[in-house]
């Protein structure tokens, strides 16, 4: 199983541990990731606020590079994924647009390959059964809130790999790793993205609601699949605690990190030493509990 791999900017900076754990888990499961050489920024939220064509052309160039190899692209970041899916739709619907894009990127682009989320490929392509078979240290006793954020499953006309209102892919994964996925209402609410930077008063409130609802649902940690969600929930958590006078101490995991831990890698190997909210005590207590049980 071979895929083109598009890390995107976040995975080289704030989300290095996501990149690291994704590669680790993929290798472990026999998924070959071929990093697209000379990949460029997807444009994310900046480009499509400025220019529609630019917003389509930037991710199209990356898609075209993968198309040359005939490989579907695995994308770990929700924003990159969403932008690529938007290109696929635009090209599918308009031959004229496809030609315009080809002219701009000065490459052939037929729209024959598609972008897929890491989550989608690991769960729907590799399969939960194969993942289960690799679990050496089940996450027994860990109640986890699977948090999808907004862009993985919405808008459904471009994403469509899970239910846009009540996605379950990551919940099923948590269960396969031996943890317990708690039902909770905020799994697709927005984390605020860049709002905690621009409008701290509004943005922190959004993060606060997510942390609060997860804790109320009984979760001891949150599992994410998006670098910006992770950034807001993890890095901003202390700020939120100060602003709302409430303590959470909720570790925020990338699902790939949890997979690595469950597959038997050490927390350090899984990249868990670079989080703001230290997840190690929680994992250690879980390990101890299992050993005494």
């Amino acid at each position, binding site marked *: 199983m071979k895929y083109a791999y598009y890390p995107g900017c976040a995975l080289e900076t704030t989300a290095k541990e996501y990149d690291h754990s994704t590669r680790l888990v993929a290798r472990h499961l026999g998924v070959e990731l071929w990093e697209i050489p000379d990949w460029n920024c997807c444009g994310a939220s900046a480009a499509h606020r400025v220019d529609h064509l630019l917003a389509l052309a930037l991710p199209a160039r990356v898609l075209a590079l993968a198309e040359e190899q005939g490989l579907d692209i695995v994308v770990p970041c929700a924003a990159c994924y969403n932008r690529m899916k938007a290109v696929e739709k635009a090209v599918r619907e308009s031959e004229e647009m496809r030609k315009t894009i080809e002219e701009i990127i000065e490459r052939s682009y037929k729209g024959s390959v598609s972008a897929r989320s890491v989550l989608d490929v690991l769960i729907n392509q590799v399969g939960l059964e194969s993942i289960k078979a690799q679990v050496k240290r089940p996450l027994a006793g860990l109640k986890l809130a699977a948090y999808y954020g907004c862009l993985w499953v919405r808008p459904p*006309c471009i994403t469509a790999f899970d*239910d846009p*209102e*009540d996605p379950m892919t990551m919940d099923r994964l948590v269960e396969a790793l031996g943890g317990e996925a708690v039902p909770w*209402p905020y799994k697709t609410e927005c984390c605020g993205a860049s709002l905690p930077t621009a409008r701290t008063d509004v943005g922190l409130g959004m993060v606060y609601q997510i942390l609060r609802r997860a804790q*109320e649902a009984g979760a001891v940690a949150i599992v994410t699949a998006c670098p910006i969600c992770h950034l807001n929930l993890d890095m901003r958590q202390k700020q939120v605690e100060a602003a709302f006078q409430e303590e959470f101490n909720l570790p925020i995991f990338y699902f790939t990190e949890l997979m690595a831990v469950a597959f038997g890698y050490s927390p350090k190997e899984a990249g868990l030493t670079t989080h703001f909210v230290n997840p190690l005590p929680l994992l250690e207590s879980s390990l101890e509990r299992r050993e005494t049980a």
Partner: protein
Amino acid sequence: MVAAARHPNIELLTYSEVEDVSGYVGNFEVTIRKKARKVDATKCRGCGVCWEKCPTKVDSEFEQGLAKRKAIYIPFAQAVPAIPVIDQEHCLYFTKGRCGVCQKVCPAKAIDYEQQDEIIKDKFGAIIVATGFELFNWREVYGEYGYGKYPDVIDSMQFERLNVSSGPTGGKILRPSDGREPKTVVFIKCVGSRDEAKGKSYCSRACCMYTAKHAHQVLEKIPGAQVIVFYMDIRTPGKAYEEFLERTIHEGAIYVRGRVSKVFPEGDKLIVKGEDTLLGRPVEVAADLVVVVPAMVPSRGWDKLAKMLGLQTDKDGFFQEAHPKLRPVETFTAGVFLAGACQGPKDIPDTVAQASAAAAKAILLLSKDEMATEPMVASVDQSVCAGCGLCVEVCPYKAISLTTIAERVGGREITRQVATVNTGLCQGCGSCAVTCPSSAMNLKGFTNEQILAEVDAICL
């Protein structure tokens, strides 16, 4: 209903289904399956001992799952006729071959487990279709409202059952989860209506008014209650409708213009998360009861019925009237009329008006011995008709059939197939005339020669 059942000229066939319709206006031949109730209607006196004693409880369809019925039952207390039916899917006698309590207790010896379906074939002059509507399948499509997960999220039909004095709560508005009286009730309108992404593109038209009624009833029955109605637009085009809405608002109902994005529980409350588009702000309401107001869609089976009667439907399955303004109760099939929500979403006054019109149209038809039709109908020149049958396929009114004629050719008697037009059914659309490869079919008043002459006149 009782008056209709007692009328000497009305025969009610309940628990029956139309299986086939053939023939044409004034001469319909209808096959009806009278399903086996397993109760002899001629003996049953409707005393009710059987359903009192029946040990099997099933969710009541009529009560929208809010109460139970027995496996032998009448759908509701005022049902006509008051003769029960055995639900063979759940009855112990039919599923496990034991019990038989109803037969033992019936004083009239009316229970007949061996009773079979009966097929009735009869002739009718006119048909009025009044198959009504059902609610849009919001439970599966709008997962974010949490039907099934949260028992206090119900729909308008369920609310109506909670609200009527003959319902499962005796007319008290109570939460299904714990039987408590709700203090804050939220209504979510347009669920499935005017939502092209997930539901239907049309406005269901009746919901604004019945929701105003429901809001009014909550305020009237529960002292100190708070009612919040989320809406997209309020549509009250009817006599005294706007005034009724104003009254409900003055009584204290709060109308919030915006959609609800999610319902989720917090303690024993339901948090309704939505938007107030007039304030431009997100809003959250802690509700005790949430009532979803779903779109109206045609009753299931509309597609089968449309085929049987040759009816056209719109994109959503509502039967098409012959003309939206001038022939609102007729269909393109002569002798078939429409009444009520099967033609499009509508409320009670509109339904009664349309039904009265359909009845009058049917009476008009039946009161005549002969029918006057438009003169511009298709006719066949049988001498050139090759009997290919293409016209039969294209005729939307089922007005053309093939028939065998005998003629002498070269001193010999031969038989061959030719098309023939039923002038009572033909509406003069001309589809057959343009399809006919041998120019045998012509529309009277618009024959091929006449049209060509017109073309010549323009060109020369």
